[in-house]
Structures are given as C-alpha cells and as structure tokens.
C-alpha cells in the first residue's frame, strides 16, 4: 500500500479534483491474487479498512482477465464486509464482467489503457453518485454493465403504442432497440453419440418439477435456483402417493396423477430388463424450468452433469414440459 495516488490512481485523483482525495493506493500482482484469491483479498481488505475510505475505485482492468477478476472479487468483498461503495471498470470481454456485474458496478471501458483519464472520469462520476447516495440511472445512461435488476418506471405511451412505433421504425429501415434484450444462448457442441446404448448407463433428468412429497429440497415453483436428486433404486415404478409437483408453469394435474407422464421410470426399467439400455441410473435429477434464469440453468446443468459423469452415466434423457 502506498499513501496517496500512484499509477492509475493519479487519474482517479485528477478526475476527483476538489470532490475528494485519494488517501492511498493498494496494489498487488495479478498472479498473487489469482493463485490465492482468499488470502490476497483478505490482506487487501484489511489494508483498505485501515484507511476508512468513503469509496473504493478498482482498476480499471480493461481487457486484462486476471486483473478484472481480482477487481471484481475485491469490490464485492469491500461492499459486503466494509459496507463501503465500490466501482470498477472493464472491457465487455473481461471474464470479471460476467462473474461480478450482478454484485458490483462495473463501468464499460475500452480494451486498452490508451484513454485512461476519460475512462476513469466515468468511474469516478458513478462512484461519487454512490457515495452521495444519489439515484443511479439505467446501465445505458450511466455506462455500467446491467446488474440484472428490474426497476418499475412510468412511461407516457402504453406498450401497444411503443410496439407500433417500433414496427414503423423497422419498416422504414431504421434500427430499433428492443426494450427487453433477449438472452443469447451460447452454442453447446453436440456430444458424440453413444456407440452402444445396450451397454451404457442412462439417467433420467427433468425440468418438469417432480419432487417427493413435502419437497425436501425446497425447489422453487418458478425461477428455480435449486434441484434435487431422488433415488429410484429398486423401484419398478413411481408411486403417485409418494410424489408431488411444484412446477407453476403448467397444469400439473396429469403428472400428479401419474408421475410417469413426466419421468418414465416404468418403461425405462422395462427397457433395462430387456437389454435395450445397459443400466438405468439410480438417481433422478429434477428442477422446475419456468422463468429460470440462464445463469442458474447453466450452473445447475454443470453441477448435475458433473455428478452424473462422476457416477459413470453416459447418456441422459431430459424430459421437459
């Protein structure tokens, strides 16, 4: 730690001008913090705490990946543990953006430090608003990455009028900006086929909301963040009395009457016995796929896939509603 402003912090001081003083600059190596993030963040945190700042400005990290992740981790820790507002800056392709934009205000910058002072002015402007507890505008207005937060706003024209205006713009060949940016779904390369399903272990997975009675894992009725793993070991079929369905996106009457209408344990057992598949995996994974965020879907998918792979499962039949 150095007293006062050094390096890029000099640009912060310049941007602050009379609005504030850079009391200290905390610095460390990219590799140091990448290799031992918990130790490093804790050490930086205690240095920062000792200064009692009103605001912490990290970076900007531009397109430097390890630097970006470090800035995000530090800002998140400062906010959570010191209750001090923070702001950082990154290029859109910095991995720190996706990791931390929901927790931290990350101002969008270019990829390199050539326009350092201009970029830092935008960081500082947003930082000062946070310190003064002023209203923060939309990501587009303030120039930070959307944090996934929805605010209600009053607009003068109703949705039909806005949609019609948008259509007319489009017909006139002008560019239109959707009010609801659609998520882009990253392409997943198709895994190779199974050579012999007759020898393979196959698992059943569903996003249709099957749970044991009492929903022991507390799987949400919509916008799920949790999934459950339920044993079917030794079961020839699912007893409707043992199961419930918490999915709030479709009429679940029929699958509550007979869970096989969602998770085909009965015929999968038959096919296993007849040798059409090697083995039916003894765990069924289940969650609710309704208004579930892409981020949580990806995480749950990764976790379930890792557990299935560790159990030697080669193929999955995912039933969806």
């Amino acid at each position, binding site marked *: 730690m150095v007293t006062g402003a050094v390096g890029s912090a000099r640009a912060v001081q310049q941007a602050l001008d009379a609005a504030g003083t850079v009391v200290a600059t905390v610095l460390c190596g990219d590799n140091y913090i990448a290799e031992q993030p918990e130790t490093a963040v804790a050490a930086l945190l205690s240095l920062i705490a000792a200064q009692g700042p009103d605001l912490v400005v990290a970076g900007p990290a531009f397109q430097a990946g390890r630097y970006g992740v470090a800035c995000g981790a530090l800002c998140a820790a400062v906010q959570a543990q010191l209750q001090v507002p923070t702001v950082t800056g990154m290029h859109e392709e910095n991995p720190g953006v996706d990791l931390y934009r929901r927790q931290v205000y990350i101002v969008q910058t270019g990829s390199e430090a050539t326009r350092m002072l201009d970029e830092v002015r935008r960081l500082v402007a947003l930082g000062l608003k946070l310190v003064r507890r002023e209203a923060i505008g939309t990501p587009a207005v303030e120039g930070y990455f959307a944090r996934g937060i929805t605010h209600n706003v009053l607009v003068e024209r109703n949705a039909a009028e806005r949609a019609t205006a948008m259509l007319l713009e489009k017909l006139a060949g002008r560019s239109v900006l959707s009010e609801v940016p659609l998520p882009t779904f990253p392409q997943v390369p*198709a895994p190779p086929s199974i050579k012999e399903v007759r020898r393979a272990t196959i698992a059943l997975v569903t996003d249709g909301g099957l749970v044991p009675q009492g929903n022991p894992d507390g799987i949400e009725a919509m916008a799920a963040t949790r999934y459950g793993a339920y044993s079917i070991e030794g079961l020839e079929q699912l007893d409707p009395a043992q199961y419930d369905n918490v999915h709030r996106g479709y*009429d679940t009457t029929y*699958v509550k009457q007979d869970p096989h209408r969602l998770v085909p344990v009965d015929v999968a057992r038959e*096919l296993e016995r007849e040798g059409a598949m090697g083995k039916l995996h003894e765990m069924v994974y289940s969650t609710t796929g309704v208004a579930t965020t892409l981020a949580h879907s990806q995480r749950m998918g990764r976790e379930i896939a890792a557990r299935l792979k560790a159990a030697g499962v080669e193929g999955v039949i995912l039933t969806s509603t």
Partner: protein
Amino acid sequence: MTPVAVMVGANRIVPAAGIIHPLGNAELSPEEEKALRRRIVEKALQALQTDVAQPTVFAAPSITEAERGGEGQARP
C-alpha cells in the same frame, strides 16, 4: 416446445406428447398410454446413438394427433 428446444440449442430433441403430460396422455387407456411412452423413450435411446452436428429434431411419426392430446397453457 420443440422450436424452443431448437432455439436454445439442445442437440438431440425428441418431440413428445404435450406440455401437460410429455410422456403420456390421460385420455388413452393405461396400456395405450404406456405403449406411447415406450415409443418416445425408445426414440430417445435411438437419438443418443446418432451423431449430430447441430440441434436435431428426431421425428416421432408414431405419435398420432389423438395421442398427442392437449398442449394446455404453459409459460416458458
């Protein structure tokens, strides 16, 4: 829901018997319903044995319109 599955990039897609009962249909007899379910699962096993390069819908011609039944009201 197969267009949604294609749009989000699922690689092996087997059309089933409707949103409110993908692997069954309450209007069929229990035997017919199970036979329908079995055909869908057999098709899925076939799909797992087939190499694909992009989202591919495996036709399930053995499901009749009567078997498919109601789509019901569903939110994505």
